[in-house]
């Protein structure tokens, strides 16, 4: 980063800062509008969400969220009047649509799958990636460049291309539609990212630290655990978030290899169906809840974003 004042020379004087600011802000607002629209749709009633012309402001409603978490059945007025009065506010809301709650929907187990598979594969990928990156960074590994390129090239395969044999392999091993299978698969996909990113971060830690520790009588492994790892915490955390985001967002493998027990959110969200097609407020509610963690991570990661998305090729 250079000193801001030094930039005064490099600026094209024809375009004042304010105009640049206004154009960028306008682009940002346009780009954010679709997301805001989805957020708003989550708080509309199903009727308002598909009104023509589209309504910007409508009576706020949490029906989308209630519909997201429940399954409901339509009932006759006679049956509804024979029921005891509703116990909770959400039962009341559903009752007002002449329906009753039949039970919880599958969204919670799916969300849980996303969390378990995401964190499980991230943990494994970061553990494997950290030690491999340390070895590549500090030791003279024969064919190191070839191995590193091999690790990267596994990312170039279209997921559908490897999905065919992985599907067959999982079927033979009984891993189809299991969380373990998905964790192993995502770990393999993420390990290439983890090795490349972490090698960059560990390269930046001066070797002198470990060498000093080893002079003091630490073994190489002790130096790794007690000196290098603490120094690499930021890098490891950033890498972990990138791995987590990948696993969180992944769709191709999830839709082909899972159908129920291990299904994550991305293949589930498009199939949130109401009466007559997609229940848009419920879909929007699910999308909002699904995006929130990512939103947080993006803000946390801002400084390391560039590195993460270019496999460490570009560092600021």
């Amino acid at each position, binding site marked *: 980063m250079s000193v801001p004042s030094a930039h005064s020379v490099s600026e094209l004087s024809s375009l004042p800062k304010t105009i640049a600011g206004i154009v960028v802000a306008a682009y940002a607002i346009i780009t954010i509008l*679709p997301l805001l629209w989805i957020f708003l749709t989550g708080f509309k009633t199903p009727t308002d969400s598909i009104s023509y012309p589209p309504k910007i402001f409508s009576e706020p409603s949490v029906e989308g969220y209630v519909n997201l978490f429940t399954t409901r059945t339509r009932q006759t007025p006679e049956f509804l009047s024979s029921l005891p009065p509703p116990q909770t506010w959400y039962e009341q809301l559903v009752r007002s649509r002449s329906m009753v709650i039949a039970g919880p929907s599958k969204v919670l187990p799916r969300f849980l799958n996303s969390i378990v598979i995401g964190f499980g594969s991230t943990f494994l990928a970061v553990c494997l990636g950290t030690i*491999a990156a340390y*070895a590549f960074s500090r030791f003279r590994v024969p064919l190191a460049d070839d191995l590193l390129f091999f690790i990267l090239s*596994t990312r170039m395969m279209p997921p559908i291309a490897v999905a065919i044999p992985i599907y067959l392999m999982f079927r033979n091993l009984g891993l189809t539609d299991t969380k373990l299978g998905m964790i192993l698969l995502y770990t*393999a996909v993420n390990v290439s990212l983890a090795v490349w990113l972490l090698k960059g971060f560990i390269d930046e830690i001066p070797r002198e630290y470990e060498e000093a520790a080893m002079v003091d009588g630490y073994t190489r492994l002790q130096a790794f655990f007690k000196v290098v790892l603490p120094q690499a915490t930021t890098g490891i955390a950033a890498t972990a978030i990138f791995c987590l985001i990948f696993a969180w967002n992944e769709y191709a493998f999830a839709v082909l290899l899972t159908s129920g027990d291990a299904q994550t959110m991305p293949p589930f969200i498009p199939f949130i169906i109401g009466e007559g097609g997609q229940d848009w407020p419920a879909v929007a509610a699910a999308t909002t809840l699904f995006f929130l963690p990512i939103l947080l991570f993006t803000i946390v990661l801002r400084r390391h974003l560039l590195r993460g998305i270019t496999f460490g*090729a570009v560092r600021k």
Partner: protein
Amino acid sequence: MSTLAERAVARAPRRPAFRLGGMSDRAIAWLFITPSILLLLAINIFPLLWTIQLSFTNYRANRPNAPLRYIGLANYRDILTDPDVWHAMQATAHFVLWSIALQVVLGFSLALLINRRFRGHSFWTTMILLPMMLSPAVVGNFWTFLLQPQIGLFNSAVAFFTGADPSSFQMIGDVALAPWSIIMVDTWMWTPYVMLICLAGLRSIPDYIYEAAEVDRASPWRQFWSITLPMVMPFLMLAILFRAIENFKMFDMVNLLTSGGPGSTTEVASITLKREAFEKWRTGYSSALAIILFVTVFGAANIYVRALDRVKQR
């Protein structure tokens, strides 16, 4: 690269292994690298080899007990003479070229503007970055909602600015517009990616170069063409490489936005692959197609990286 000290460490005699953690460096190196390599061999390379083997057979995954026959290069011959595959390749090329062209123009322009460091630039940058962090599948899904004729936000916005009837056109259902709807959503999502990389390129240009140009009374226009653009070029080319690989294998967003439709207008290569492999269950045939796609990406990426190196050296 390696310092003397490092070489000395690497050549240090093996210490006896009885002390906890007292392994030799070489042993540690292999111990640390092997798990990752084994995992990649099991979950990436073994399946790839299996795909190669299957591509020479008539295997169908929905009939595992049918006799397996080796049919040589027949699958490859069928693919290369299949007009549907060529159609998919054209659709993919159209999608990749246009989406990258738009992202480069928009991303580079935004980066130039953000590099002016106006007040609040980091806040707006973060806002712009959001779409690329989202799940492409979920993005594809909610854009089907935004692109609906009449009730969709997009059609209403277009109607608002042009005065056209919002129900007079549909982005997803129309043969002429559907290819542009996937390009538009991809551009919406990935322009920030190109922007971020270009911004890094712009910030890597040392100020003294501009100062020297200023002394020489080079016009801003001249400065842009002879300083800014060449210096950002390697970064821009890297961004194009990553985007091209990703978009060539694009599946999730397109599958949810148009699922290849209407008809097969937006059927990009990965969608064809999915249809052959998991709907028609022609496993052998689709394996051959997968190999062709992989070789194409890999070959093109290699050629491109050489070109990139040449640009960097200049």
